[in-house]
């Protein structure tokens, strides 16, 4: 049985108030740095097919990392090995999982964004991995939290 990690363990230290901004599929995504284990240049990844699931996966620190398909939720992922793309290793409830993104724009203080809930009229349970939006400099970003991503990736 997998032991659940306490919040914060295995995450980037001192990162609770930091946000990472990345592009994917035409959308601007916002991740809490405290929910990220690591950021890896995607063109260095070793891709394999998971014998159990038959899905594409990549090897991360010697282990196969689950790579849920977020195409329906975040738009198409960058192609395997695409230049300037990145793998975000996200803390999962039981195990980390990977999210492929394109450019990483940077890491910003959480206070640099304004946050609003997605209007109830636009919510569709099970079809969205974000329920909050962030605004900064005339941009709208989807707030991707680990729990929401994990739920959509199952």
């Amino acid at each position, binding site marked *: 049985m997998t032991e659940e990690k306490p919040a914060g363990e295995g995450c980037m230290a001192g990162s609770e108030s930091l946000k990472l901004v990345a592009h994917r*599929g*035409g*959308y601007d995504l916002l991740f809490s740095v405290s929910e990220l284990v690591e950021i890896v240049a995607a063109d260095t990844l070793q891709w394999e097919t998971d014998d159990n699931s038959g899905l594409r996966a990549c090897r991360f620190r010697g282990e196969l990392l689950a790579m849920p398909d977020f195409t*329906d*939720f*975040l*738009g198409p992922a960058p192609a395997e090995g695409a230049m300037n793309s990145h793998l975000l290793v996200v803390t999962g409830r039981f195990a980390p999982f990977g999210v492929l993104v394109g450019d990483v724009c940077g890491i910003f203080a959480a206070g640099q964004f*304004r946050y*609003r809930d*997605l*209007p*109830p*009229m*636009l919510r*569709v349970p099970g*079809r*969205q*991995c974000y329920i909050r*939006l962030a*605004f900064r400099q*005339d941009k*709208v970003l*989807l707030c991707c939290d680990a729990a929401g991503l994990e739920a959509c990736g199952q």
Partner: protein
Amino acid sequence: MMSPDARLALFGEKRDALACHANLIEAVFERPAVFVLPGIPDGFEGICLFRDEPVPVLGRQQFFDGLTLQGDDLAICRSEMGLVAVPVAAGGRIVEIAEGRIETSREDVSECMADCFIYQNLRYPLLDLDKLLLQLQP
């Protein structure tokens, strides 16, 4: 003096013609930025920002026979479910209902499009936003 309920906002003239009760319109913006979002219900395009709050934007599309929303401007309208941005053609105007007449559709194409406003020999589909939004809920 006529009450504000007796006035309609008219947009467009032909395929983009649309009428909406003027008292439901908070503002009209020329070519505002619309942010597309993934996974939202069919019939919506994304959000725009109004008074620093995200407002759902209806899609520029045909919803039913006789109801096509199009245009680069957005009318921010009140509904029972909150504010909604409706794509409209540029150059809207406000008229008294008494200057034309409301005609109930005999084709009964949809509940949302039961009525048309006839004004200067042009037909303006009269938008019933609350009924339309109910039909768009997943």
